[in-house]
Protein backbone atom coordinates (compact mmCIF):
# COMPACT_ATOMS: atom_id res chain seq x y z
CA UNK A 1 0.00 0.00 0.00
CA UNK A 2 2.92 2.29 0.63
CA UNK A 3 4.20 2.36 -2.94
CA UNK A 4 1.92 3.81 -5.53
CA UNK A 5 0.94 1.26 -8.10
CA UNK A 6 0.19 2.55 -11.56
CA UNK A 7 -3.51 2.93 -12.19
CA UNK A 8 -4.93 -0.49 -12.92
CA UNK A 9 -6.28 -1.56 -16.30
CA UNK A 10 -9.05 -3.47 -14.50
CA UNK A 11 -12.55 -2.09 -15.08
CA UNK A 12 -15.13 -1.05 -12.53
CA UNK A 13 -13.08 1.29 -10.37
CA UNK A 14 -15.46 4.22 -10.57
CA UNK A 15 -18.54 2.09 -10.10
CA UNK A 16 -17.27 0.05 -7.16
CA UNK A 17 -15.64 2.95 -5.35
CA UNK A 18 -18.63 5.20 -6.00
CA UNK A 19 -21.04 2.65 -4.62
CA UNK A 20 -18.78 1.94 -1.64
CA UNK A 21 -18.44 5.57 -0.69
CA UNK A 22 -22.13 6.36 -1.25
CA UNK A 23 -23.36 3.37 0.75
CA UNK A 24 -20.87 4.02 3.52
CA UNK A 25 -21.88 7.66 3.58
CA UNK A 26 -25.60 7.03 3.75
CA UNK A 27 -25.59 4.13 6.19
CA UNK A 28 -22.72 5.00 8.50
CA UNK A 29 -21.06 8.37 8.12
CA UNK A 30 -24.03 10.69 7.71
CA UNK A 31 -26.00 9.22 10.63
CA UNK A 32 -22.93 9.36 12.88
CA UNK A 33 -22.22 12.95 11.92
CA UNK A 34 -25.80 13.80 12.77
CA UNK A 35 -25.21 12.66 16.34
CA UNK A 36 -22.44 15.21 16.73
CA UNK A 37 -24.46 17.83 14.91
CA UNK A 38 -27.37 17.31 17.28
CA UNK A 39 -25.07 17.25 20.28
CA UNK A 40 -23.42 20.48 19.22
CA UNK A 41 -26.86 22.10 19.37
CA UNK A 42 -26.64 21.70 23.12
CA UNK A 43 -23.54 23.85 23.33
CA UNK A 44 -20.64 22.99 25.58
CA UNK A 45 -22.39 23.95 28.77
CA UNK A 46 -25.57 22.12 27.83
CA UNK A 47 -23.52 19.08 26.87
CA UNK A 48 -21.68 19.20 30.13
CA UNK A 49 -24.81 19.76 32.22
CA UNK A 50 -26.44 16.75 30.63
CA UNK A 51 -23.51 14.53 31.43
CA UNK A 52 -22.51 15.81 34.85
CA UNK A 53 -25.45 14.35 36.70
CA UNK A 54 -24.89 11.79 39.45
CA UNK A 55 -26.87 9.21 37.51
CA UNK A 56 -24.76 9.57 34.37
CA UNK A 57 -21.52 9.70 36.29
CA UNK A 58 -22.29 6.56 38.21
CA UNK A 59 -23.30 4.81 34.98
CA UNK A 60 -19.96 5.90 33.51
CA UNK A 61 -18.07 4.59 36.49
CA UNK A 62 -19.92 1.31 36.36
CA UNK A 63 -19.61 0.81 32.59
CA UNK A 64 -15.97 1.80 32.27
CA UNK A 65 -14.85 0.24 35.54
CA UNK A 66 -16.44 -3.13 34.84
CA UNK A 67 -15.44 -3.07 31.17
CA UNK A 68 -11.85 -2.47 32.22
CA UNK A 69 -11.99 -5.25 34.78
CA UNK A 70 -13.59 -7.58 32.23
CA UNK A 71 -10.89 -6.65 29.70
CA UNK A 72 -8.15 -7.48 32.20
CA UNK A 73 -9.76 -10.78 33.19
CA UNK A 74 -10.10 -11.63 29.52
CA UNK A 75 -6.46 -10.69 29.06
CA UNK A 76 -5.39 -13.19 31.69
CA UNK A 77 -7.73 -16.04 30.81
CA UNK A 78 -7.53 -15.31 27.09
CA UNK A 79 -3.76 -15.67 27.22
CA UNK A 80 -4.11 -18.98 29.01
CA UNK A 81 -6.69 -20.27 26.52
CA UNK A 82 -4.75 -19.07 23.47
CA UNK A 83 -1.59 -20.68 24.84
CA UNK A 84 -3.32 -24.00 25.48
CA UNK A 85 -5.02 -24.02 22.09
CA UNK A 86 -1.87 -23.21 20.11
CA UNK A 87 0.78 -25.06 22.10
CA UNK A 88 -0.79 -28.25 23.36
CA UNK A 89 -2.20 -31.18 21.48
CA UNK A 90 -4.93 -33.04 23.33
CA UNK A 91 -8.22 -34.71 22.51
CA UNK A 92 -11.01 -32.15 22.18
CA UNK A 93 -8.70 -29.27 21.34
CA UNK A 94 -10.39 -28.49 18.03
CA UNK A 95 -13.77 -28.54 19.70
CA UNK A 96 -12.65 -26.09 22.36
CA UNK A 97 -11.04 -23.94 19.69
CA UNK A 98 -14.26 -23.72 17.70
CA UNK A 99 -16.34 -23.06 20.81
CA UNK A 100 -14.34 -19.94 21.68
CA UNK A 101 -16.41 -18.11 19.05
CA UNK A 102 -19.67 -19.00 20.78
CA UNK A 103 -20.08 -15.49 22.25
CA UNK A 104 -19.86 -14.10 18.69
CA UNK A 105 -22.33 -16.61 17.32
CA UNK A 106 -24.90 -16.57 20.13
CA UNK A 107 -27.39 -13.71 20.06
CA UNK A 108 -26.65 -11.41 22.96
CA UNK A 109 -30.20 -11.60 24.30
CA UNK A 110 -29.91 -15.38 24.58
CA UNK A 111 -26.63 -15.07 26.44
CA UNK A 112 -28.25 -12.45 28.62
CA UNK A 113 -31.20 -14.52 29.79
CA UNK A 114 -29.08 -17.68 30.10
CA UNK A 115 -26.50 -16.00 32.33
CA UNK A 116 -29.26 -14.35 34.34
CA UNK A 117 -31.10 -17.61 34.94
CA UNK A 118 -27.80 -19.25 35.82
CA UNK A 119 -26.66 -16.69 38.37
CA UNK A 120 -30.04 -15.62 39.77
CA UNK A 121 -30.44 -16.47 43.46
CA UNK A 122 -32.47 -19.54 42.49
CA UNK A 123 -30.27 -20.47 39.50
CA UNK A 124 -27.79 -23.35 39.17
CA UNK A 125 -24.81 -21.27 40.20
CA UNK A 126 -26.52 -18.38 41.93
CA UNK A 127 -28.00 -20.77 44.49
CA UNK A 128 -24.48 -22.00 45.31
CA UNK A 129 -23.36 -18.46 46.11
CA UNK A 130 -26.50 -17.47 47.98
CA UNK A 131 -25.73 -19.19 51.30
CA UNK A 132 -22.56 -17.10 51.54
CA UNK A 133 -24.54 -13.92 51.08
CA UNK A 134 -23.05 -13.35 47.63
CA UNK A 135 -25.35 -11.83 45.07
CA UNK A 136 -24.23 -12.28 41.48
CA UNK A 137 -27.16 -11.57 39.17
CA UNK A 138 -28.70 -8.09 39.57
CA UNK A 139 -25.38 -6.90 41.01
CA UNK A 140 -22.12 -5.61 39.50
CA UNK A 141 -20.67 -9.15 39.67
CA UNK A 142 -23.34 -10.32 37.21
CA UNK A 143 -22.54 -7.51 34.81
CA UNK A 144 -18.88 -8.43 35.01
CA UNK A 145 -19.65 -12.04 34.12
CA UNK A 146 -21.66 -10.98 31.08
CA UNK A 147 -18.88 -8.66 29.94
CA UNK A 148 -16.23 -11.36 30.34
CA UNK A 149 -18.44 -13.70 28.32
CA UNK A 150 -18.88 -11.24 25.49
CA UNK A 151 -15.20 -10.20 25.34
CA UNK A 152 -13.60 -13.63 25.56
CA UNK A 153 -13.05 -14.29 21.83
CA UNK A 154 -11.24 -10.99 21.22
CA UNK A 155 -8.14 -11.75 23.26
CA UNK A 156 -7.97 -15.40 22.22
CA UNK A 157 -8.37 -14.68 18.52
CA UNK A 158 -5.87 -11.81 18.56
CA UNK A 159 -3.23 -13.84 20.36
CA UNK A 160 -3.62 -17.13 18.51
CA UNK A 161 -1.99 -16.13 15.20
CA UNK A 162 0.84 -14.38 17.04
CA UNK A 163 1.54 -17.45 19.17
CA UNK A 164 1.25 -19.72 16.16
CA UNK A 165 3.81 -17.69 14.24
CA UNK A 166 6.18 -17.39 17.18
CA UNK A 167 9.61 -18.70 16.29
CA UNK A 168 10.06 -21.82 18.41
CA UNK A 169 13.82 -21.58 17.82
CA UNK A 170 13.89 -18.50 20.06
CA UNK A 171 12.57 -20.60 22.92
CA UNK A 172 15.10 -23.30 22.12
CA UNK A 173 17.84 -20.70 22.01
CA UNK A 174 16.81 -19.45 25.45
CA UNK A 175 16.83 -23.02 26.80
CA UNK A 176 20.24 -23.77 25.34
CA UNK A 177 21.53 -20.60 27.00
CA UNK A 178 20.45 -21.99 30.35
CA UNK A 179 17.07 -20.30 30.86
CA UNK A 180 14.36 -22.16 32.74
CA UNK A 181 10.98 -22.58 31.07
CA UNK A 182 9.50 -19.77 33.15
CA UNK A 183 12.44 -17.45 32.36
CA UNK A 184 11.99 -18.27 28.69
CA UNK A 185 8.32 -17.37 28.85
CA UNK A 186 8.79 -14.21 30.88
CA UNK A 187 11.85 -12.81 29.12
CA UNK A 188 11.50 -14.10 25.56
CA UNK A 189 7.90 -14.98 24.68
CA UNK A 190 5.83 -12.62 26.79
CA UNK A 191 7.49 -9.33 25.79
CA UNK A 192 6.93 -10.19 22.15
CA UNK A 193 3.24 -10.97 22.50
CA UNK A 194 2.43 -7.97 24.69
CA UNK A 195 1.30 -5.76 21.78
CA UNK A 196 -1.20 -8.41 20.68
CA UNK A 197 -2.31 -8.95 24.26
CA UNK A 198 -2.98 -5.24 24.72
CA UNK A 199 -4.78 -5.07 21.38
CA UNK A 200 -7.04 -7.97 22.31
CA UNK A 201 -7.72 -6.56 25.76
CA UNK A 202 -8.55 -3.16 24.29
CA UNK A 203 -10.92 -4.77 21.79
CA UNK A 204 -12.65 -6.65 24.60
CA UNK A 205 -12.83 -3.45 26.65
CA UNK A 206 -14.30 -1.46 23.75
CA UNK A 207 -16.92 -4.09 23.14
CA UNK A 208 -17.77 -4.29 26.83
CA UNK A 209 -18.32 -0.54 27.19
CA UNK A 210 -21.04 -0.57 24.54
CA UNK A 211 -22.52 -3.98 25.25
CA UNK A 212 -26.25 -4.05 25.86
CA UNK A 213 -28.07 -7.31 25.11
CA UNK A 214 -26.14 -9.70 27.30
CA UNK A 215 -25.93 -7.24 30.20
CA UNK A 216 -29.36 -5.72 30.43
CA UNK A 217 -31.04 -8.83 31.84
CA UNK A 218 -28.46 -9.64 34.47
CA UNK A 219 -27.73 -6.05 35.49
CA UNK A 220 -30.76 -5.32 37.63
CA UNK A 221 -30.80 -1.81 36.17
CA UNK A 222 -31.04 0.13 39.42
CA UNK A 223 -30.30 3.78 38.62
CA UNK A 224 -27.08 4.83 40.27
CA UNK A 225 -26.19 1.25 41.18
CA UNK A 226 -26.42 -1.25 38.37
CA UNK A 227 -27.42 0.93 35.45
CA UNK A 228 -24.98 0.80 32.54
CA UNK A 229 -24.44 3.57 29.97
CA UNK A 230 -26.19 1.96 26.98
CA UNK A 231 -29.25 1.28 29.13
CA UNK A 232 -29.25 4.87 30.29
CA UNK A 233 -29.37 5.99 26.66
CA UNK A 234 -32.40 3.81 26.07
CA UNK A 235 -34.06 5.08 29.22
CA UNK A 236 -33.54 8.66 28.11
CA UNK A 237 -34.94 7.84 24.66
CA UNK A 238 -38.01 6.25 26.20
CA UNK A 239 -38.52 9.39 28.26
CA UNK A 240 -38.16 11.41 25.06
CA UNK A 241 -35.07 13.10 26.51
CA UNK A 242 -33.44 13.30 23.08
CA UNK A 243 -30.78 15.86 24.04
CA UNK A 244 -29.69 13.68 26.94
CA UNK A 245 -29.54 10.53 24.83
CA UNK A 246 -27.66 12.39 22.10
CA UNK A 247 -25.09 13.80 24.48
CA UNK A 248 -24.46 10.36 25.94
CA UNK A 249 -24.22 8.82 22.49
CA UNK A 250 -21.77 11.49 21.35
CA UNK A 251 -19.59 10.86 24.37
CA UNK A 252 -19.62 7.11 23.80
CA UNK A 253 -18.81 7.58 20.13
CA UNK A 254 -15.85 9.80 20.93
CA UNK A 255 -14.54 7.20 23.33
CA UNK A 256 -14.98 4.36 20.85
CA UNK A 257 -13.17 6.34 18.16
CA UNK A 258 -10.32 7.02 20.54
CA UNK A 259 -10.13 3.31 21.34
CA UNK A 260 -10.25 2.48 17.64
CA UNK A 261 -7.31 4.79 16.99
CA UNK A 262 -5.43 3.23 19.88
CA UNK A 263 -6.10 -0.28 18.56
CA UNK A 264 -4.97 0.70 15.06
CA UNK A 265 -1.83 2.22 16.49
CA UNK A 266 -1.09 -0.88 18.56
CA UNK A 267 -1.69 -3.21 15.66
CA UNK A 268 0.59 -1.20 13.41
CA UNK A 269 3.24 -1.21 16.08
CA UNK A 270 3.08 -4.96 16.64
CA UNK A 271 3.11 -5.59 12.89
CA UNK A 272 6.20 -3.45 12.51
CA UNK A 273 7.97 -5.40 15.20
CA UNK A 274 7.07 -8.80 13.88
CA UNK A 275 8.32 -7.90 10.46
CA UNK A 276 11.87 -7.81 11.81
Amino acid at each position, binding site marked *: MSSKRPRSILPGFGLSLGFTVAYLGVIVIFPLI*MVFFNASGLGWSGFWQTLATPRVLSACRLSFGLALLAGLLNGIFGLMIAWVLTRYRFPGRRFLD*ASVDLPFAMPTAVAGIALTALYAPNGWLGSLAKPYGIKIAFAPAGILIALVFIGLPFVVRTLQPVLEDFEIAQEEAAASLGATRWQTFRRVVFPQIVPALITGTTLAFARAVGEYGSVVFIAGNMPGKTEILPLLIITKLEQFDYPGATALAAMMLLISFALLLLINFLQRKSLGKNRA
Partner: protein
Amino acid sequence: MSATARPSQDSLWTRLLLIGGTVGFLTLFLFVPLALVFTEALRKGLQVYAEAITEENALSAIKLTLTVTAISVPLNAVFGVAAAWAIAKFSFKGKSLLLALIDLPFAVSPVVSGLVYVLLFGARGLFGPWLDEHNIQIIFAVPGMVLATVFVTFPFVARELIPLMQSQGNDEEYAALSLGASGWQTFRKVTLPNIKWALFYGIILCNARAMGEFGAVSVVSGHIRGETNTLPLHVEVLYNEYNSAAAFACASILSLLGLLTLALKTFIEWRAGLRRRHS
Protein backbone atom coordinates in the same frame (compact mmCIF):
# COMPACT_ATOMS: atom_id res chain seq x y z
CA MET B 1 8.53 -39.71 28.14
CA SER B 2 10.96 -39.23 30.99
CA ALA B 3 12.53 -35.99 32.18
CA THR B 4 13.56 -35.29 28.61
CA ALA B 5 10.84 -32.80 27.67
CA ARG B 6 11.77 -30.83 24.59
CA PRO B 7 12.84 -27.31 25.49
CA SER B 8 9.86 -25.67 23.83
CA GLN B 9 7.49 -27.90 25.78
CA ASP B 10 5.95 -27.13 29.13
CA SER B 11 6.20 -29.62 31.92
CA LEU B 12 3.43 -32.15 32.36
CA TRP B 13 2.12 -30.35 35.45
CA THR B 14 2.00 -27.00 33.71
CA ARG B 15 0.16 -28.54 30.81
CA LEU B 16 -2.37 -30.30 33.01
CA LEU B 17 -2.95 -27.16 35.04
CA LEU B 18 -3.45 -24.90 32.03
CA ILE B 19 -5.59 -27.38 30.09
CA GLY B 20 -7.68 -27.86 33.23
CA GLY B 21 -8.01 -24.12 33.61
CA THR B 22 -9.05 -23.71 30.00
CA VAL B 23 -11.61 -26.49 30.10
CA GLY B 24 -12.96 -25.17 33.39
CA PHE B 25 -13.20 -21.58 32.21
CA LEU B 26 -14.87 -22.46 28.91
CA THR B 27 -17.24 -24.83 30.64
CA LEU B 28 -18.28 -22.24 33.19
CA PHE B 29 -18.64 -19.38 30.73
CA LEU B 30 -19.81 -21.13 27.55
CA PHE B 31 -21.05 -24.65 27.97
CA VAL B 32 -23.06 -24.33 31.17
CA PRO B 33 -25.06 -21.31 29.91
CA LEU B 34 -25.64 -23.11 26.61
CA ALA B 35 -26.81 -26.24 28.38
CA LEU B 36 -29.08 -24.14 30.55
CA VAL B 37 -30.87 -22.69 27.50
CA PHE B 38 -31.93 -26.12 26.31
CA THR B 39 -32.71 -27.45 29.78
CA GLU B 40 -34.93 -24.50 30.59
CA ALA B 41 -36.57 -24.68 27.17
CA LEU B 42 -37.59 -28.30 27.70
CA ARG B 43 -38.28 -28.07 31.42
CA LYS B 44 -42.03 -28.13 30.96
CA GLY B 45 -41.95 -30.79 28.29
CA LEU B 46 -41.99 -30.99 24.55
CA GLN B 47 -45.61 -29.96 24.29
CA VAL B 48 -45.04 -26.58 25.92
CA TYR B 49 -41.89 -26.18 23.85
CA ALA B 50 -43.71 -26.85 20.61
CA GLU B 51 -46.52 -24.51 21.57
CA ALA B 52 -44.10 -21.74 22.48
CA ILE B 53 -42.42 -21.75 19.11
CA THR B 54 -45.55 -22.20 17.02
CA GLU B 55 -47.61 -19.63 18.85
CA GLU B 56 -48.77 -16.78 16.64
CA ASN B 57 -46.51 -14.06 18.02
CA ALA B 58 -43.49 -16.34 17.92
CA LEU B 59 -44.16 -17.21 14.29
CA SER B 60 -44.55 -13.60 13.31
CA ALA B 61 -41.32 -12.78 15.17
CA ILE B 62 -39.54 -15.50 13.22
CA LYS B 63 -41.01 -14.17 10.02
CA LEU B 64 -39.90 -10.63 10.79
CA THR B 65 -36.41 -11.78 11.71
CA LEU B 66 -36.13 -13.63 8.42
CA THR B 67 -37.44 -10.63 6.49
CA VAL B 68 -35.01 -8.20 8.07
CA THR B 69 -32.14 -10.61 7.51
CA ALA B 70 -33.14 -11.34 3.92
CA ILE B 71 -32.90 -7.64 3.11
CA SER B 72 -29.83 -6.60 5.07
CA VAL B 73 -27.49 -9.51 4.38
CA PRO B 74 -27.61 -9.28 0.56
CA LEU B 75 -27.15 -5.50 0.79
CA ASN B 76 -24.03 -5.87 2.85
CA ALA B 77 -22.76 -8.72 0.70
CA VAL B 78 -23.00 -6.58 -2.43
CA PHE B 79 -21.38 -3.72 -0.58
CA GLY B 80 -18.61 -6.01 0.66
CA VAL B 81 -17.77 -7.21 -2.84
CA ALA B 82 -17.83 -3.70 -4.28
CA ALA B 83 -15.70 -2.29 -1.48
CA ALA B 84 -13.20 -5.14 -1.72
CA TRP B 85 -12.97 -4.73 -5.50
CA ALA B 86 -12.27 -1.02 -5.22
CA ILE B 87 -9.87 -1.30 -2.31
CA ALA B 88 -7.95 -4.44 -3.21
CA LYS B 89 -7.66 -4.01 -6.96
CA PHE B 90 -6.91 -0.32 -7.27
CA SER B 91 -4.68 2.19 -5.60
CA PHE B 92 -6.09 5.57 -4.68
CA LYS B 93 -5.68 8.28 -2.12
CA GLY B 94 -7.47 7.90 1.19
CA LYS B 95 -7.62 4.13 1.01
CA SER B 96 -6.55 3.55 4.60
CA LEU B 97 -9.10 6.08 5.80
CA LEU B 98 -11.80 4.25 3.86
CA LEU B 99 -10.68 0.96 5.40
CA ALA B 100 -10.91 2.43 8.88
CA LEU B 101 -14.35 3.89 8.20
CA ILE B 102 -15.69 0.55 7.01
CA ASP B 103 -14.72 -0.97 10.36
CA LEU B 104 -16.35 1.87 12.27
CA PRO B 105 -19.71 0.20 13.01
CA PHE B 106 -17.94 -2.50 15.03
CA ALA B 107 -16.69 0.17 17.40
CA VAL B 108 -20.12 1.67 17.96
CA SER B 109 -22.37 0.47 20.76
CA PRO B 110 -25.45 -1.30 19.35
CA VAL B 111 -27.66 1.10 21.26
CA VAL B 112 -25.99 4.07 19.59
CA SER B 113 -26.32 2.32 16.22
CA GLY B 114 -30.06 2.31 16.68
CA LEU B 115 -30.14 5.78 18.12
CA VAL B 116 -28.54 7.41 15.07
CA TYR B 117 -31.56 6.44 12.97
CA VAL B 118 -33.99 7.66 15.59
CA LEU B 119 -32.23 11.03 15.40
CA LEU B 120 -32.67 11.01 11.62
CA PHE B 121 -36.04 9.46 11.04
CA GLY B 122 -37.81 9.60 14.41
CA ALA B 123 -40.77 11.86 15.03
CA ARG B 124 -38.43 14.61 16.30
CA GLY B 125 -35.59 13.67 13.98
CA LEU B 126 -34.19 15.60 11.04
CA PHE B 127 -36.51 14.01 8.48
CA GLY B 128 -39.30 13.34 10.99
CA PRO B 129 -41.67 16.09 9.92
CA TRP B 130 -41.20 15.40 6.21
CA LEU B 131 -41.76 11.65 6.70
CA ASP B 132 -44.82 12.39 8.79
CA GLU B 133 -46.24 14.61 6.07
CA HIS B 134 -45.85 11.87 3.50
CA ASN B 135 -47.09 9.25 5.90
CA ILE B 136 -43.93 7.16 5.78
CA GLN B 137 -42.92 5.35 8.90
CA ILE B 138 -39.31 4.24 9.33
CA ILE B 139 -38.72 4.21 13.06
CA PHE B 140 -40.82 1.72 15.03
CA ALA B 141 -41.32 -0.10 11.73
CA VAL B 142 -39.56 -2.60 9.51
CA PRO B 143 -37.43 -0.09 7.50
CA GLY B 144 -35.83 1.20 10.69
CA MET B 145 -35.06 -2.29 11.85
CA VAL B 146 -33.48 -3.10 8.50
CA LEU B 147 -31.37 0.06 8.70
CA ALA B 148 -30.19 -0.71 12.22
CA THR B 149 -29.35 -4.28 11.23
CA VAL B 150 -27.48 -3.12 8.14
CA PHE B 151 -25.48 -0.76 10.32
CA VAL B 152 -24.36 -3.32 12.89
CA THR B 153 -23.54 -5.97 10.28
CA PHE B 154 -21.99 -3.49 7.88
CA PRO B 155 -18.29 -4.60 7.89
CA PHE B 156 -18.66 -8.40 8.05
CA VAL B 157 -18.38 -9.31 4.37
CA ALA B 158 -16.02 -6.50 3.39
CA ARG B 159 -13.47 -7.28 6.07
CA GLU B 160 -13.30 -10.94 5.05
CA LEU B 161 -12.85 -10.11 1.38
CA ILE B 162 -10.46 -7.15 1.46
CA PRO B 163 -7.38 -8.82 2.97
CA LEU B 164 -7.92 -11.94 0.88
CA MET B 165 -8.24 -10.04 -2.40
CA GLN B 166 -5.28 -7.85 -1.49
CA SER B 167 -3.11 -10.90 -0.96
CA GLN B 168 -4.29 -12.47 -4.22
CA GLY B 169 -3.16 -9.54 -6.34
CA ASN B 170 -4.37 -8.73 -9.84
CA ASP B 171 -2.39 -11.15 -11.99
CA GLU B 172 -5.21 -13.57 -12.69
CA GLU B 173 -7.55 -10.74 -13.66
CA TYR B 174 -4.91 -9.27 -15.97
CA ALA B 175 -4.45 -12.67 -17.57
CA ALA B 176 -8.20 -13.01 -18.15
CA LEU B 177 -8.46 -9.53 -19.65
CA SER B 178 -5.48 -10.17 -21.91
CA LEU B 179 -7.21 -13.31 -23.12
CA GLY B 180 -10.16 -11.22 -24.22
CA ALA B 181 -12.58 -11.61 -21.32
CA SER B 182 -14.87 -8.69 -20.55
CA GLY B 183 -14.76 -7.03 -17.15
CA TRP B 184 -17.89 -8.83 -16.00
CA GLN B 185 -16.65 -12.19 -17.29
CA THR B 186 -13.35 -11.63 -15.51
CA PHE B 187 -15.14 -10.96 -12.26
CA ARG B 188 -17.52 -13.89 -12.58
CA LYS B 189 -15.10 -16.51 -13.85
CA VAL B 190 -11.82 -15.50 -12.20
CA THR B 191 -12.37 -13.30 -9.16
CA LEU B 192 -15.55 -14.84 -7.78
CA PRO B 193 -14.27 -18.44 -7.69
CA ASN B 194 -11.18 -17.20 -5.87
CA ILE B 195 -13.14 -15.45 -3.16
CA LYS B 196 -16.19 -17.68 -2.86
CA TRP B 197 -15.24 -19.27 0.47
CA ALA B 198 -14.35 -15.97 2.07
CA LEU B 199 -17.56 -14.49 0.72
CA PHE B 200 -19.57 -17.37 2.13
CA TYR B 201 -17.74 -17.01 5.42
CA GLY B 202 -18.51 -13.32 5.65
CA ILE B 203 -22.16 -13.91 4.76
CA ILE B 204 -22.50 -16.55 7.47
CA LEU B 205 -21.12 -14.22 10.15
CA CYS B 206 -23.22 -11.35 8.83
CA ASN B 207 -26.29 -13.55 8.87
CA ALA B 208 -25.75 -14.74 12.42
CA ARG B 209 -25.37 -11.22 13.71
CA ALA B 210 -28.34 -9.99 11.68
CA MET B 211 -30.66 -12.64 13.08
CA GLY B 212 -29.43 -12.23 16.61
CA GLU B 213 -29.06 -8.45 16.88
CA PHE B 214 -30.79 -7.11 19.93
CA GLY B 215 -29.64 -3.70 21.13
CA ALA B 216 -29.80 -1.72 17.90
CA VAL B 217 -33.05 -3.27 16.79
CA SER B 218 -34.55 -2.78 20.22
CA VAL B 219 -34.04 0.98 19.97
CA VAL B 220 -35.81 1.35 16.61
CA SER B 221 -38.48 -1.26 17.18
CA GLY B 222 -41.80 -0.17 18.59
CA HIS B 223 -41.97 -3.44 20.53
CA ILE B 224 -45.35 -4.08 19.03
CA ARG B 225 -46.20 -7.73 19.46
CA GLY B 226 -46.82 -9.59 16.26
CA GLU B 227 -45.65 -6.58 14.28
CA THR B 228 -42.25 -5.16 15.15
CA ASN B 229 -40.81 -7.83 17.41
CA THR B 230 -37.95 -9.87 16.00
CA LEU B 231 -37.17 -13.18 17.62
CA PRO B 232 -34.56 -11.78 20.07
CA LEU B 233 -37.02 -9.04 21.06
CA HIS B 234 -39.75 -11.63 21.47
CA VAL B 235 -37.44 -13.53 23.81
CA GLU B 236 -37.04 -10.38 25.88
CA VAL B 237 -40.78 -9.80 26.13
CA LEU B 238 -41.44 -13.39 27.17
CA TYR B 239 -38.64 -13.32 29.71
CA ASN B 240 -39.84 -10.08 31.24
CA GLU B 241 -43.31 -11.58 31.53
CA TYR B 242 -41.79 -14.42 33.57
CA ASN B 243 -42.74 -16.85 30.85
CA SER B 244 -39.39 -18.52 31.21
CA ALA B 245 -40.14 -21.75 29.36
CA ALA B 246 -41.38 -19.94 26.27
CA ALA B 247 -38.52 -17.43 26.40
CA PHE B 248 -35.96 -20.21 26.51
CA ALA B 249 -37.81 -22.17 23.83
CA CYS B 250 -37.40 -19.23 21.46
CA ALA B 251 -33.86 -18.69 22.72
CA SER B 252 -33.07 -22.31 21.91
CA ILE B 253 -33.94 -21.69 18.26
CA LEU B 254 -31.52 -18.77 18.22
CA SER B 255 -28.92 -20.91 20.00
CA LEU B 256 -29.26 -23.65 17.42
CA LEU B 257 -28.74 -21.00 14.81
CA GLY B 258 -25.60 -19.90 16.61
CA LEU B 259 -24.32 -23.46 16.80
CA LEU B 260 -25.07 -23.98 13.12
CA THR B 261 -23.12 -20.82 12.37
CA LEU B 262 -20.17 -22.08 14.38
CA ALA B 263 -20.27 -25.43 12.63
CA LEU B 264 -20.39 -23.84 9.17
CA LYS B 265 -17.68 -21.39 10.13
CA THR B 266 -15.42 -24.17 11.38
CA PHE B 267 -16.16 -26.17 8.26
CA ILE B 268 -15.17 -23.30 5.97
CA GLU B 269 -12.02 -22.63 7.93
CA TRP B 270 -11.11 -26.26 7.55
CA ARG B 271 -12.21 -26.49 3.93
CA ALA B 272 -10.64 -23.31 2.66
CA GLY B 273 -7.78 -23.07 5.12
CA LEU B 274 -8.94 -19.59 5.98
CA ARG B 275 -7.16 -17.88 8.82
CA ARG B 276 -9.48 -16.96 11.62
CA ARG B 277 -9.85 -13.33 12.35
CA HIS B 278 -11.68 -11.76 15.22
CA SER B 279 -14.76 -9.86 14.29
